[in-house]
């Protein structure tokens, strides 16, 4: 068994283990108890069980082990390797200088990366996670936090999923900061497919990483596993929005296991998308209302202190200063912004609250949207995305 010069036998053996049917991080770790991956592969090739494996773990049947025996002999290691290394991907293992999981209790076997792998060890780093079904407010908060923290020199880690993840990545990219995207699928399986552009950008301007081989499909269990990698990489985790039992809460559990502090953005009590994050706050997790809260914890200085992420005008004079040059109806704008500050509002409600005819109101709302004060999605008015 010998591979190209720069790739060790150990990496190839690990690659072979990962390509066995029904092997995830847990079973791979069990197989590695043989001493090393090379040792484990050798045992499998000789259809023998290593003494250090002891009893088969639950779920691993004799039949499955037999399949592994059969499978490992059919593997062509150089093909496997070539497949992984095309299109500029790299394979990192624990011997690599950029390996970020040295102290992790559940490190991945290998890390498949695209982009600047030196970012993986970048200090400080923060994960911004949350629900895929986020509100416009949540998206805005995630974007702003990503942008502000990245600007202060913090590497932003997230999971490349729709919703909060995407907003956080986009924010970090917008201020040219360090971006790390951890995928739950293979690097070539863009999930969700609509995020293709984002994956490309993260790979070219930051780093894209995954613990699974190319072609790995999005399976349910892979996302919690991905979340443990995120928690293992960062110095702090920020939950922007999470439903009552959202996947983001799994990242929080993993972070807690690793002693990594967790921040949560308080949300409206009316919004189900903030149930999970508000529960975290009730359980005593740190509050974050702007990047400064996190920067203070990381002992970093904010590049330009901001009063808060969701800037709600406190009094009329401030809004007038903001709006006068653009809008002839600052009173209406104030009223609309106040109505929408707690979350998206249907136009019907504004019609009732403001006592205007929909025709006039809609005209004004659209103008406010053009000026960037609000955003209209269908017939729902909310604070704008950034």
């Amino acid at each position, binding site marked *: 068994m010998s591979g190209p010069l720069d790739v060790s036998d150990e990496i190839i053996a690990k690659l072979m283990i990962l390509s066995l049917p029904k092997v995830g991080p847990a079973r791979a770790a069990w197989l590695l108890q043989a001493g090393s991956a090379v040792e484990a592969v050798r045992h499998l090739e000789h259809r023998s069980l290593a003494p250090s494996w002891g009893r088969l773990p639950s779920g691993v049947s004799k039949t499955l082990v037999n399949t592994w025996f059969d499978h490992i002999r059919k593997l062509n290691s150089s093909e496997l390797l070539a497949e992984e290394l095309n299109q500029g991907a790299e394979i990192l293992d624990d011997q690599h200088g950029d390996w970020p999981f040295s102290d992790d209790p559940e490190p991945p076997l290998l890390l498949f990366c695209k982009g600047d792998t030196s970012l993986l060890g970048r200090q400080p780093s923060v994960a911004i996670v949350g629900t895929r079904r986020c509100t416009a407010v949540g998206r805005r908060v995630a974007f702003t936090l990503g942008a502000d923290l990245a600007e202060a020199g913090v590497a932003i880690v997230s999971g490349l999923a729709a919703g909060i993840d995407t907003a956080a990545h986009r924010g970090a990219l917008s201020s040219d900061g360090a971006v790390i995207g951890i995928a739950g699928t293979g690097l070539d399986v863009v999930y969700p497919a609509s995020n293709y552009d984002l994956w490309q950008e993260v790979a070219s301007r930051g780093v894209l990483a995954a613990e699974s081989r190319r072609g790995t499909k999005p399976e349910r269990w892979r996302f919690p596993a991905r979340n443990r990698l995120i928690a293992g990489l960062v110095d702090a985790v920020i939950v922007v929005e999470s439903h009552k039992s959202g996947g983001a809460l799994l990242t929080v559990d993993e972070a807690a296991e690793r002693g990594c502090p967790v921040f949560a953005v308080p949300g409206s009590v009316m919004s189900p998308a903030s149930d999970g994050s508000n529960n975290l706050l009730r359980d005593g997790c740190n509050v974050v209302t702007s990047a400064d809260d996190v920067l203070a914890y990381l002992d970093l200085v904010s590049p330009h202190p901001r009063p808060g992420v969701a800037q709600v005008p406190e009094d009329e004079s401030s809004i007038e200063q903001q709006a006068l040059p653009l809008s002839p109806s600052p009173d209406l704008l104030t009223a609309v912004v106040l109505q929408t500050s707690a979350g998206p509002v249907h136009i019907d409600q504004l019609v009732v609250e403001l006592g205007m005819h929909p025709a006039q109101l809609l005209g004004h709302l*659209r103008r406010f949207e053009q000026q960037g004060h609000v955003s209209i999605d269908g*017939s729902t008015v909310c604070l704008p995305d950034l």
Partner: protein
Amino acid sequence: MLATIQSAVVVGVTGHSVSVEVHVSNGLPGYTLVGLPDASCRESRDRVRAAILSSGLKWPAKRVTINLAPTELRKHGASLDLPIALAILAASEQIPPDSLRHVGAVGELGLDGSVRAVPGLVCLADAISSTELIVPVEGARQAAVVRPGAVRSVEHLRPLVAALAGDEPVPSIVEPDPTGPVSEACTADLRHVRGQPMARWALEVAAAGGHHILLVGPPGAGKTMLASRLVGLLPPLANSRAIETTRVHSAAGLEVPSTGLIRTPPFRAPHHGASFVSMVGGGSSSLRPGEISCAHGGVLFLDELGEFPVSVLDSLRQPLEEGVVRVSRAARSATMPADFLLVAAMNPCPCGQGGTGGTCRCSDAARARYSRRLSGPLLDRFGIRVEVKPPDPSLLLDGPNEETSVEVAARVCSARQKANERGVRCNALLAHGQLETVAPLTAGAKNLLRVMLEEGQLTGRGLRQVRVLALTLADLDDDREPGKPLDVDVLHAAVGLRGVPASVFGEAA
């Protein structure tokens, strides 16, 4: 002896003239029907024979040959019963053969000799060129509108034969009654819709400008209730359209008012299980009009739009554009009117809760699959798209009384009058070239549209729709001086009426 009488059969919504020739000769008694009759038409033999005998007349014990000309047109249905009976009686000299020279007839016969209604009477009457026309009582008034002064109605074969023989007075000419009831009591009044100011207004604009409207919202938000109110806002049908609609309904065998033409715009709400043919038209050799033609002049309501088969939805595109539908089969083709106001309602996603951050349980993939059912071109044809949210419970229980349909219809009517002055029935029909003259834009408005086009927020079709929509909004505003260029505010409002939530239809919509 030979006798001939004029009659007709209907294909699509058009009558085709048929002459019924009967030859009675000596020979072995028998009965032959030729000229491409289908099964329902061939059955006429037994009905005609029984009707003649029940009416106290004689069935000729001779060789009876009946030819339906032109022979290449397939004849169907029972509408030729009466002319066949009359021609047999004339050929067997029980009535004077000359008496049928200027007479046409349509009608189904009962075994007792009674003359029954036939579908498509209006279309049939139109196709028969004889100076006098004998039809069943039911539908005679509608037939009289297309053939004034020619229609006589009969209830039974016997008095008709007596009249033709000169023994009894001829049944009097049926007077056309084009007025009819202007509108039946509309039970679905807009007054019963509490709250929903945005959707109520959108309905008003849709009715005033003839813009197709899509209502998106969770179950129970009131989409169906709103949609059923739209028809009450439309003005009664004008003469020519009333005739067209009556023809279609008559051809489709739908109930037509006993007094005259259909004046109330029809409201058709086919279930989403409807087949392609039932929606578009077609079927047997008669090419029956489909639901979209039955909605001609009125409202076609597609509830649960996302559940309709994609083929059915895409078949709507051509009729929406042209106002007619062409149904072609190997043997025949028919062009049928299909100019309707489309109202569609759908949930934002399969579970219905939809929207961002809500209680939606759908996966992204399920949601994408659901919204994909609506092709972009179809979505683009909805001039107005409104998101409907369930109203405040307090409004439902003891909210104030809302405007009635009659009040809103009055505004709609005055807006439509302004469109009439531009030479169209409603603004949606304005030709592209006309827009420049009837709906000029202020410089600011032009700028706004340019920005939206450049940013890809508007397509070419969208641009036209926004301008037309803005014109309708201006028409509805009584304080506005007519002919004033459309300004930024009214354009903003028009764009706002086309909003679909991105969470439902993706950013591209």
